[in-house]
Structures are given as C-alpha cells and as structure tokens.
C-alpha cells in the first residue's frame, strides 16, 4: 500500500487568494516552514492558485518530474478541489494524489484578529495535508461490467411504461407478471381521473406497444424464484425455468385494495354495503341506466371515506400483520368523487351523500372534480375518527361536525365504502432480494424526498404504487423516472463507481469476522473461501464502519485510511514555529 512513499515528492502551493488569505496568514512563512519537510520537494506561495497561471505552476512542476504529489492550501475544497484534480490529470498524474487544504473559510476568514495563531494553524493544517497525501495511493475509479437488460417485476401500467421507456433507450427488457395477463388494475376502470380518458383505450395503447416491441420479453404467470448477483449483473431464475441476467431491476409490483375488516360498517353482513372497487365494477358491467342492488333500483347512496386508511390504533381493527393502516391512501378521495360524478351523469336524481374526514383533492384537475360533485347536488358530511358513521336498516347515521355535531340520519339504499390501497404481496420477493420495506409495508425508497425511485441497494429501482399509493399520472411519472435511472446506470458497457470504498489487506486479515456485523450493506463485506474478509466494491458505500473494528488494521477506507487520519492528527497536534 505504501510502497510509493519512498519516492514521494510533494509540491506544496500556498494561495494568497489576493489578500483573502495573505492579509491574515503569513503565507511566505507557511511555505517556508513546509519547505523544511524532508519529502516536500517544492514549496511556493502564489497570488491566485486557481488562476490559469497558478494551475500552470503545478502542471509544470509535475511535468518536469520535480514532484509527484500535490498539496494546495487555499479556499474550501468545495470550490477548487476538482479544479486541481483536473490539472493533475492534464499533467498525467493520478488525480487522487492531490490534497486540498482549506486555509480560507476555515482559517483566514475566521481568525482575523490573530495573525500568528492563524499562521501557525495554517502551517499545521497544510502539514497535515502533506502527511495525508504521502500515504495516498493512486486510486482508480471502479468499473463493473453491465448486462444491458432490465428485469421489470410487475405488468401493471407502471411496469408497462417502464418496459417501453427502457426499450426505447436501447435496453433489453424482461417483464415478469405474476398473473396471467398484463395491465394490472387498469382493467378495473371505465374511465380514469382527472381527464376522464377511457381506461381500456389507454391500456390498449400500452399493450399494443409492448407486444410490438421486440426488445421486450413478457413472461406471464411467472415469479422470480431464485436471486443472486449485484448491480450490473443480477441473476434470476423464474418459476418458468427461464434464467434472466439483468444489469438493473425495476420493481413495479403495485398495490392491492384493502378489504374492510370483518363487520366494519356491516360489510359482509348487509348486502347494501359494498366497496368502491365493487361499485366501479358494477358500473362498468352495466354502463347505462339506473343503478340497481338486488334487482331493486337504488335511489340513495352514501359514500364513506377512509375505510382502511388513516386508521387509528384502538379505533380500527388491525390488518393481517397486526398493524393498522395509518397512512392516507391518496387516490381514494378523487376516485370516489370521479365515480360519484359518473353516477350523477347517468342518474341525475340519485341522492348521494358523501361522508368524509378531509377531502383530499390535491392534484391537478382534482379540485374541479370536487366542485363538480358539489354542483351535482352531492351532500357532504364530515365525521371524526372517534365518531364513525353508523349503518342502520335503511340508513346511515353520521355525527356531522360541519353542522355542530348534529346527528343526521341519511337514507341509503346503497353504502359504498371508499377503501384504500396496500402494497402488493411481495414479502417473499423482498426477503429474497433483500429489499427494504417501510413500516407501511410499501417498498422503501433510498431517500423519501430526493431519491423516490431509487433503493439503497444499488441497481434496484421503484416504479409506481409499490413505493406508495399513486394515481395513474403519478405512476407513469414514477415509471419514467425509474427508467431514467436505469438508462443512466446501463448507458455504458460498464458502471463507474467511486473509488472511496473499503478494501482488505489479505495478509493482515486474521479472519476474526469482527467486521461483518458492522456492515449495513448486504453483500458488501463477506468472508471468502480462504477465510479472509473481502469487499464487493460494487456494494460498499464507503462509510468505514468496518474499519473501526479491525484490530489488525487489515481493513481500510481507500482515500481515507486510518493511517492517514492519524498522521493528520499528529501534524495538527504538533507545534510549529510561529
């Protein structure tokens, strides 16, 4: 690792930053002091190191063979570390043999009143930079080969769009669908909100495009049976026996409707009580004429929102796993109102009562659907989670907070429970693929704000409602976003990864395994056949947790080794001449 140390010749450059540094720090003294270091071959100060002239100094000194490692003491590395790494590259020197020391933001700007102390500190910090770079290797970016195929699990609209988008980017696609047909929940709808397009037309478009695309292989009635590999090179065997070698995976495993719990709102006991999906199915099956129930015309309908969503412990019966669904299912408010408007269109004299907790018509065009429902004469009643509506013989009773908690009895030939959604049945799959799920059982994204379609596990991406409840517009966007990430990962023949990962000196490794429990990334750190720790650079994120517990110091973080850090601390602790 440190074989290069003997021949190391460091060039040190101290920047004036046009007075920003030199007005406080005696840059000449810093350069002079560093010049005394036995392995510093050149030590200079210069007015503006970041200028072309400054960079040229460095490049010339490298090219003339005087130095083979560089330390620049100047501003924050955020501003110019990359500038100088590129300069090293132009001089044909490994760009990682560079250390940037911050003596502006963290010295001259914050210690204006004490020139001597600032100078001493700048000297110590620069010396620490020298000690670090003396112990630095020529790091190289890590390249991993990549199969130009993406495996997509789930053939609903999100999976279909992701497949089309990926294929359009020149990738091969294997689309695995558990059921016997593609299209998922899109089959259930007549029209979709907010635009009211025909669901079957939209689906038809997707399906014909998929079947016409030779790059997409659809495997129906199949599941992933075995799983192995890592980003660039995943290996799956399907229940059909097909083997798939994919560079990346898009999960599009979708959602399920929640079912009311036994007896909730007399569901299952009273045949007047149905769910919203059941109503939509009935309306689709009989697209015209008045609604009927048990052969009788329906004159009044009560919709009850938040069934299976926004559940409160102690009020609602738990789901199969013993937990309540405390999340909002996002899609049901607008879906219910969209359906209500369709009902009103075919049967304008139908009395409709909408019992809600909050109306969440948040999306583009949603509020207009809510307004249309009001205009259509739908009556709205607001209840609280503590006082749920009660289903009676031929009515529903609600304590309406909008009219000062008046108890209102509403006639109801039909009661529609606006049920929520929960993730598809993926427990086995996620266990096999080692994918994280959240407390809401949906697949867990890498960051809930900034990385919604990525998973912490490299090479996995999320499309649509497997990540959270989503409507069709949002699922399409998520699918496109996932396809974008896949295109980025697989755009080249290899995947380039940061070199700052853990590495093992096999000679020092005693095989004690103390490091294994420290690693949070499955597969990144393991014991190999010769009982030595080994790092899979494609999976390691470079946190260094394993380094801390390795007593023989066999493990280290490339670019941030413990030896380097200790040498830096020593340089900072030691006193220098003022």
């Amino acid at each position, binding site marked *: 690792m440190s074989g290069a140390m003997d021949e190391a010749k460091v060039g040190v450059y101290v920047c004036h930053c046009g007075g920003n540094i030199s007005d406080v720090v005696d840059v000449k003294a810093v350069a002079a002091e560093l010049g005394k270091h036995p392995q510093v071959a050149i030590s200079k100060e210069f007015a503006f190191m970041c200028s072309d002239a400054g960079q040229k100094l460095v490049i010339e000194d490298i090219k003339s063979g005087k130095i083979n490692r560089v330390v620049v003491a100047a501003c924050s590395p955020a501003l110019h570390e990359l500038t100088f790494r590129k300069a090293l590259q132009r001089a044909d020197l490994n760009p990682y043999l560079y250390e940037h020391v911050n003596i502006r933001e963290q010295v001259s700007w914050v210690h204006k009143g004490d020139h001597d102390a600032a100078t001493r500190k700048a000297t110590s910090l620069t010396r620490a930079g020298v000690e670090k770079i003396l112990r630095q290797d020529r790091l190289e970016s890590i390249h991993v080969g990549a199969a130009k195929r993406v495996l997509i699990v789930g053939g609903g609209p999100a999976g279909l769009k992701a497949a089309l988008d990926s294929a359009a980017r020149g990738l091969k696609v294997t689309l695995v669908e558990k059921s016997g047909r593609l299209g998922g929940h899109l089959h259930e709808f007549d029209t979709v909100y907010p635009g009211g397009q025909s669901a079957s037309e939209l689906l038809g478009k997707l399906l014909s495009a998929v079947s016409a695309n030779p790059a997409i292989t659809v495997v129906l009635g199949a599941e992933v049976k075995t799983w192995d590999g890592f980003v660039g090179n995943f290996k799956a065997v399907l229940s059909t026996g097909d083997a798939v070698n994919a560079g990346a995976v898009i999960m599009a495993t979708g959602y399920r409707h929640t079912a009311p719990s036994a007896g909730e709102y007399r569901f299952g006991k009273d045949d007047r009580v149905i769910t919203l999906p059941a109503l939509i199915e009935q309306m689709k099956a009989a697209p015209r004429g008045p609604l009927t129930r048990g052969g009788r015309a329906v004159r009044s309908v009560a919709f009850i929102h938040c069934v299976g969503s926004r559940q409160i412990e102690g009020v609602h019966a738990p789901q199969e796993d013993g937990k309540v669904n405390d999340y909002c299912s996002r899609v049901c408010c607008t879906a219910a109102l969209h359906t209500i408007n369709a009902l009103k269109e075919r049967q304008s004299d139908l009395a409709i009562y909408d019992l809600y907790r909050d109306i969440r018509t948040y*999306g583009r065009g949603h509020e207009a659907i809510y*307004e249309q429902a009001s205009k259509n004469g739908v009556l709205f009643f*607001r209840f609280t989670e503590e006082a749920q509506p009660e289903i009676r013989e031929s009515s529903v009773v609600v304590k309406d907070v909008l009219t000062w908690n008046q108890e209102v009895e509403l006639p109801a030939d039909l009661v529609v429970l606006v049920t929520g959604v929960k993730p598809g049945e993926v427990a086995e799959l996620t266990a096999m693929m080692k994918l994280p799920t959240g407390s809401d059982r949906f697949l867990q994204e890498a960051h809930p704000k900034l990385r919604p*379609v990525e998973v912490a596990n490299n090479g996995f991406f999320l499309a649509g409602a497997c990540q959270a409840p989503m409507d069709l517009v949002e699922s399409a966007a998520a699918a*496109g976003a996932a396809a974008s*990430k896949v*295109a980025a990962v697989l*755009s080249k023949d290899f995947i380039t990864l940061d070199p700052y990962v853990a590495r093992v000196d096999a000679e020092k490794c005693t095989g004690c395994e103390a490091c294994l429990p420290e690693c949070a990334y499955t597969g990144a750190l393991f014991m190999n056949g010769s009982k030595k720790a080994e790092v899979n650079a494609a999976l390691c994120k470079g946190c260094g947790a394993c380094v801390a517990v390795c007593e023989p110091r066999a493990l280290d973080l490339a670019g941030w080794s413990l030896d380097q850090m200790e040498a830096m601390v020593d340089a900072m602790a030691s006193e220098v001449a003022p």
Partner: protein
Amino acid sequence: MKAHTLVIGAGIAGLQAALDLAEQGRQVVLVEKNPSIGGRMISLSKVYPTLDCASCITTPRMASVAHHPLIHTLTYTEVLGVAKNEDGTFRAHLRKKPRYIEEDKCIGCKRCEEVCPVYIRDDFEHQLGAKKAISIPFTNAIPQFPVLEPQSCTWCGACANACPVDCIDFTQESRDLFVEVDAVLLATGFQLTPIDAKAQYGGGKLRNVISSLQGERLLAPHGPYGRVLRPSDGKVPDSIAFVQCAGSRDASLGVPYCSRVCCMYAIKQAMLLSGSLPTADITIYYMDIRAFGKGYEAFYQNAKAMGINFVKAKVGRIREIEDGNLALRIERQEGTAQPEEAQHDLVILSLGLTPQWNPGQLAWEVKTASDGFVATPGAPLDPAATTQDGVFACGTATGPKDIVDSIMEAGNAATEVGKRLEIRAPMVPGGAS
C-alpha cells in the same frame, strides 16, 4: 452553442432532470434566470416529512450539477425566445444579464459586499433581510459570484477599490447567446400568489402578516434574524397562526385549484416553530388537511400530538391592533356557529402557487391550460409532453407539486427527452456521444 437539451429553470426539478440526462451521456445547457441555481428549495428551512435541512440536501445536488462535465450552466440568464427549426431542432435565444463582475476572475471573497455602502432589501430573504447593492446572493449560492444591482448603485467605486482581483466591470453589458438543441425541457417553477391580493388579510400592509416563504426564511438556521422573531419589533412571538388556503381554492383570486403543498408546509413550519418556541401557541386554520403523500398523515398526526391547534375555520378578516398584534375574524366550520375573534402576534398566510413563467410569451406552440400552468395533453401516461413536439415540462411548471413529486416528474421528463434523443441523436456505441 450546441447541446442535446436545453433545460429552462435550475430549481430542484431542472437540476434533477439535467443530472439524469447528463448521467445518460447527454449534453445539457441549463439556464437559470436567478444568479444562483437551487430554486425555491435552497431557500426552505427544512423539508417535510423527514425534517431534513433543505440546504443540506439541496447543496450536494447543486454541486453535482455545477461540476458535471456534460452540463453547461448559465445563471442570471433569460430566455428571450425559442424557435423550432425545420429539421425539428430548436434555436434558443438567451441573454446573459450583466453581474458587473468578470466571472473568470472573481474568487468569491465578498470584499466588495463588505465595503459597499448601500443596504437594500434582500430578495432571497423575501425582503425580511438586508443585502448590499453588490452581493453574493446567499451563503450556499452556486456560483459564488456577486451581482451588482445598477438601480441601487451609487457608482462610488468602493467595491472596485476593495476587489483583490480587479474583477468589477462597471460597464459590462448583457450578452446574447444562441443555443441549438434537439429538445427543450421546461422546469420553470412557481411563484406565490401576491401577499397583497386579499384586502381582507391586510393587503400586504400588516407588519406581522407574512407569506409562507417568509416563514421558511424565519425558520431557516441562517435566516434573516438568526431565530424566530416577528418583523414589526423583533419580539419573540408567543401566539402564531397559519391561515390555510389564503391564495388557493379561491375563484375570486383566479386560483380555484388546491395548491397541494400548503397543508404540509404549514404543518412543518408549525412543528419547527413549536420546537424553537416551546411555550408558544400555534394554530392552523384550515378547510381540509390534505396530508396525502408518503409519511404525510403520520406527520400530521404527530403535529396534533405535539399540541399544534388545528381549527377548521375560515378566516374572514385580519386587522392590526395594539403593539402590532393581530385580530382574526374566525368563522368556525365545526363546534360552534358564532363568528369570533382570535388574537395572534404573528400570522403566516399559506399563499397559493401560480406559474412562475408563461411559455406562451415566446412565439412557439407551447400552450398553457386554464389553470395557467403548462398544458400536458399526454397525461396520464405521458405527463411530460407539452403541446409542442420536442418540448417537455416537469415540476411545478405543470402545476403545484412538492419536492418529491417534482423529482419524480423530472426523472420522467428526462426519460421522454432521452427517448427523443435516441431517435434524433443516437449514442455512438461504446458510450460516448
């Protein structure tokens, strides 16, 4: 200049789309009219529901864009026009506004700002804070170049005298640029409905009635006061109200739609306030709480459990009473029928979101919908397409949206742009373009 794509707007959506495209090997010209990239997100305090510091999670993304070899970022640059050529490419006419400094010389040291004698109101702080006639836009701005505002400059020359690199150029002029691209992506963002739009809420004249974005700055750790204080006299507020739908779901303002983010940012701000002012009373007057996203409902329930007071009520009128305190006329929609008056010492209006920019100003076929945002006729399956072939849109350019949904759309837009480029400018085998 030639590139594969022009991305207009360097807020979080534009940044994400530019990064996605560049990561796919595509050349991007990213144009931003403000002096720094980062958009609205970089000015926020923390983000819901994670309560991550907005600056901390935006800055790395900004830096990745700024350092990406395939992204050419033009800040402080306006789009004057975009024309479609016969071959299907686009020619954009851009104008780089003068900063009055030479960017290749400037070292971002702020000495000009320190010596400038003219204090002016800081747009980044939504007027709550001060800056100088020449100043770096904000702490984490990228690039770290100052801007001189000629309308506030007395041309005293102090900045030039202090500049160690002699980079101030008082006679600098705007510079026109032309970019040829295969696709255009609009990520032009939103603005708030004006705070003076509603006379019944004081028409912008009440000193302690502030906008939601001002609320963000108040709560930002590096905000204008360094802590939560109210503008009229620097008092630590003890009773703070949020008025929801103060610019949305209101046809009289021309904003009949829901602005989608206000419930959640108000809840977030309320939680942050109760964290920094543990004894303060915090009330949110609302119509419906729309906590629809992942983890949002739990966030809302947490806020309730923390003691934030949620009142379903319409706020009819706000007026200033003694000491800058405010009296709000409340019409409760639950509990009691009688109108009542509530007093608070700081009021934050949850203003609505409207488009920042109207693409129809340019002579091309990009249309807006009745809500003023860019029309997306391809939705639901193709939500990024606009009425002009080859022009795409994402983020709040196509309607109010929070950060995560904007990022999702940005990724999708990058895919749609990528698909177009695959046909018009196929990648050379081996990865290079």
